[in-house]
């Protein structure tokens, strides 16, 4: 452990703002890269399935 207390961990020796801002951005970028394609895939599958059903009815 490099820190003796939780408040010391949060302040990061006065660099807390920089460190936590960076890690928050990292989390956002990583999550966005997973959540966005998952949502897009769900929407795509729904719309494709609707179209296939429509075409099946017509024929």
């Amino acid at each position, binding site marked *: *452990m490099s820190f003796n207390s939780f408040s010391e961990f949060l302040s*990061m020796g006065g660099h807390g703002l*920089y*460190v936590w801002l*960076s890690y928050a951005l990292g989390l956002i*970028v990583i999550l966005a890269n*997973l959540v966005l*394609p998952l949502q897009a895939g769900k929407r795509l599958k729904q719309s494709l*399935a609707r179209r296939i059903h429509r075409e099946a009815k017509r024929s």
Partner: protein
Amino acid sequence: MAKAEKKWLPRWFYQLASPRWCYQICGKLLPGFSLVTLVLLLGGTLWALLFAPADYQQGNSFRIIYLHVPSAILAQSCYMLMAVAGAIGLIWKMKVADMVAKSCAPIGASLAVLALLTGAIWGKPTWGSWWVWDARLTSMLILFFLYLGVMALNSAIESESTAAQSTAVLALVGLVNIPIIKYSVEWWNTLHQPATFKLTEKPAMPAEMWMPLLVMVIGFYTFFAVALMLRLRNEILRRERRSGWVKELLLVK
């Protein structure tokens, strides 16, 4: 003649060319890669934030390296993959390669943004400035613009095969930027520190510092694989929507 040519490359290369096979193999690989990514990134972050020692000059702001270096490495690796996939698509007319190239662009752009932003945040306490027009920073910014250019060009062209061809050419031309990024810290006077990992030398920092960094780099690679496979599967479904196997797949649900 055609037969002799076919034996030239391994079997999996031709299997990769099949969108259906690619969709299925990605589906099989995704759970394992996701698990490994979760373990590596979570473990690496805890190691980086809690256990790695502070730098004797930079103090704790040094911990930004554990995001900055992996995202910068991946932004470049992703670009190389995008260009190589584009080239394969151009040469062998392989549809899956075009889809890989297209799926790479948004992921690479987001990683380039992360590298630039964490770099700016790290630069403030270390150099006293958010941004300097330095060779490394500028070439990295150009990488980000190249990604944007590839994405814009791809969405601007209606025909999918023409879009893939033109973006492949743009990506290949932009490939010249990759060695510039790599050697920018050696060719020009720069504030930026040299590479942490080199293939031929031991890292200059102690093992307690670079080991979590290595974990994070590997974790970012597996994360990239997951993000790419997710996008690739969507792209395959979208492009192959008229083929029988996609209809079958979607009707089952």
